């Protein structure tokens, strides 16, 4: 027999702020995304949430699941016992547009503010530069690359530490990568822009935020590394 659980969606911009859906758990490989899709298809066609790739590559479906930021497509429900309550809420610290959908513009603005994109030294170079992967800088870049800009770490920072005065770990992580990148021409200027960031000044570790990154980027270590370069 199919096992059912309660999907409790914290909704904004509708009359009641919370709604429970009685949903079956897929027999194989069930994710929170599957529960949301079921609820929208069979129980409430107006339920709004985001997703696209369903395999953790696009970062569209970050929500707060039982109080913790995660990708809905990567959060397994296989271990949930029958009747369990799973609470899903929008990301913290961002304006809610509807239900689980937040306005990501303030998050994307952190990248713009940090100028978190390559300012190339040689944009017209017509060859691929030889860059050994074993060098210290490249090895560090490699560990910090792969961000899917889902916003989970930045939302958690806002929820746990307050958003005041920080761009958040995601934008700072990219700033670190660029500071290590020999192809970049804006290193010092960009570092100066983030030098006063509260997350850099205040914390040796982001604690539980470190564990949240869906692609496993070591965020706290990155902030410490960035601080040494200011």
């Amino acid at each position, binding site marked *: 027999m199919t096992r059912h659980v309660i999907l409790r969606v914290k909704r904004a911009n509708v009359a009641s702020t919370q709604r429970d859906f009685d949903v079956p758990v897929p027999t194989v490989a069930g994710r929170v995304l599957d529960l949301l899709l079921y609820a929208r298809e069979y129980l409430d066609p107006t339920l709004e949430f*985001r997703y696209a790739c369903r395999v953790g590559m696009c970062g569209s479906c970050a929500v707060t699941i039982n109080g913790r930021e995660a990708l809905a497509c990567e959060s*397994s429900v296989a271990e949930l016992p029958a009747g369990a309550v799973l609470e899903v809420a929008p990301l913290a610290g961002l304006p809610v547009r509807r239900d689980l959908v937040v306005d990501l513009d303030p998050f994307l603005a952190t990248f713009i503010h940090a100028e978190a994109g390559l300012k190339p030294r040689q944009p017209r170079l017509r060859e691929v530069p030889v860059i050994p992967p074993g060098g210290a800088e490249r090895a560090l870049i*490699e560990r910090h690359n792969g961000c899917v800009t889902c916003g989970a770490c930045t939302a958690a920072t806002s929820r746990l530490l307050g958003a005041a005065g920080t761009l958040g770990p995601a934008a700072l992580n990219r700033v670190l990568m660029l500071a290590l990148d020999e192809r970049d021409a804006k290193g010092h200027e960009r570092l100066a822009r983030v030098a006063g960031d509260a997350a850099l000044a205040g914390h040796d570790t982001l604690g539980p935020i470190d564990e949240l990154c869906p692609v496993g980027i070591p965020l706290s270590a990155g902030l410490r590394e960035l601080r040494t370069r200011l």
Partner: protein
Amino acid sequence: MQRRACDILIVGGGGAALYAALRACDANPRLRILVASKGLLGKSGCTRMVQGGYNVVLDPADSFDKHYDDTLRGGALINDQELAWTLVTQAPDRIFELENAYGCYFDRNPNGTIHQRALAGQSFDRTVHRGDLTGIELMGRLCEQVLLREIEILNEVRGLELLFDRSRRAICGALLLDHHSGALVAVKAKAVLLATGGAAPLYRITAASLEKSGDGMAMAFRAGAEFADMEMMQFHPTGLRAGDSALTGTVLEEGLRGAGGHLLNACGERFMDRYDPARLERSTRDRVSRASFLEIRASRGSPEGAVFLDVRHLGKEFLLKSSPGMYRRCLSIGLDMATDLVPVTPTAHFQMGGIRIDTRCRTSLEGLFAAGEDAGGVHGANRLGGNGVAESMVFGAIAGDALAEHAAHAALSEPDPRRLEEIAARLERPRDGRGSACALRREIGSVAWEDLGIIRSAASLARAATALDAFEEKVDLLPIPGARGGNSVLEETLNIRNLIAVARMICRAAALREESRGSHYREDFSETSPGGLYNIFLRRDEDATIAADVRPVRFTRRRPEELALETVIPGASVEAVPGLSEKAP
């Protein structure tokens, strides 16, 4: 209805759209560029999902001629030879730009040179990549470059219809729908690019990002643009089968077969030895997909309709090094590739057919451009792994340059008011009909899978044609509850209408091609015919029927006899790939 004006309107938010926006902006930073993306910019679409990488000739021992011949052979010789040549010869400049101007991090060899590997159907190791999650790298870097330029982004705003000027000759903009507010936005533009992606999600099982519904193609079809090769839809042989989870259909990368993975049916037989004894699992995507489909159809699959990918003999260490992303994905559903069989199914992957373009991305309609999966002709009857994202980057860039050039000498025109009214009226129709959009979508997916999919016949295509007529009536009766803003039912209804338009073209072209070639397989004409070296061009007639024109392939650079030999695939060259592995469990 809101009204906007810009110089360049780009509809789409994937790799081709972003690349076009960057190039157009850099060509002339004063241009007003508007990008309307159905999902979030750079997060929707399929460039994001690219695993394998980007094919490009960089090694002096490789050559444009080799890459070109591989591409034409892969395409079963019906590629548009000028488009394919453009792909091959411009691919290096885009890699230089991605590396040096946009800051992509591509995997390196220990000596620091760029690492290239081989995907199926290649005579040389020419695929540039970052681990097995290359799409994240490309889209991450392109997105941040777009964010840092003066390019206006409309997120979660989809294209509805193209707009004609009063002469009804040239495209002068598009009508958009803002998902959140429900507002209709009529945008006037000097040039419009369609880069919304293909319609693989037409099929019940698909690898593509699920929000895609061939919107660009459907809009262009309704506007009367010409299409090429619409019978050509690629199925990838190793889509994950994960029950009723949304994970079903997502691709397990080709490198796993290339490295020596086996495919087993439910009886434990290595069934490829009955279909392609010489190449076995390393056979081409179309042949392996067909074999798996036939095994499943003959009840030799698992009860849920899967065969099994067996990579256990490759060992955990190798799997972690060569395919860390795939290893992690399987582990997350409780399967350890090193010890477990992985259930797989063919999955609708990539649409080769699309809007006919020239080497400047111009379509048959003045003012309208297309790039990426919306366009057809580059890949012929079958796309090689690694040529898809190269196409998005190369033709995205060409489109960006062409849009900027066009906008420099074109003027804004007023849209034909009658057409605007017609479109708006259709959206305002009574909403108290019957049926369910989700149920109808599933029905269409099943019909497409059974009758328009991996194996076709005159009978299956006739069934599909009848079913599509019925679906077209049903979609107009669907109830659309509530307001237009934030309405997922309305969105799904629009998706279905677009998918049906694309499906009708696939059906028509597939019925016309009475042979088997590349990804198009007819049970009733199972051989490749020497007379099949033609392309099928379709366009919508005034009376809404589809007019077809069959024209011989133009062999402008290669004669078929020059390509008679099969591609010589070097021995198993899939080696450990640097990068990402330290993050895998």
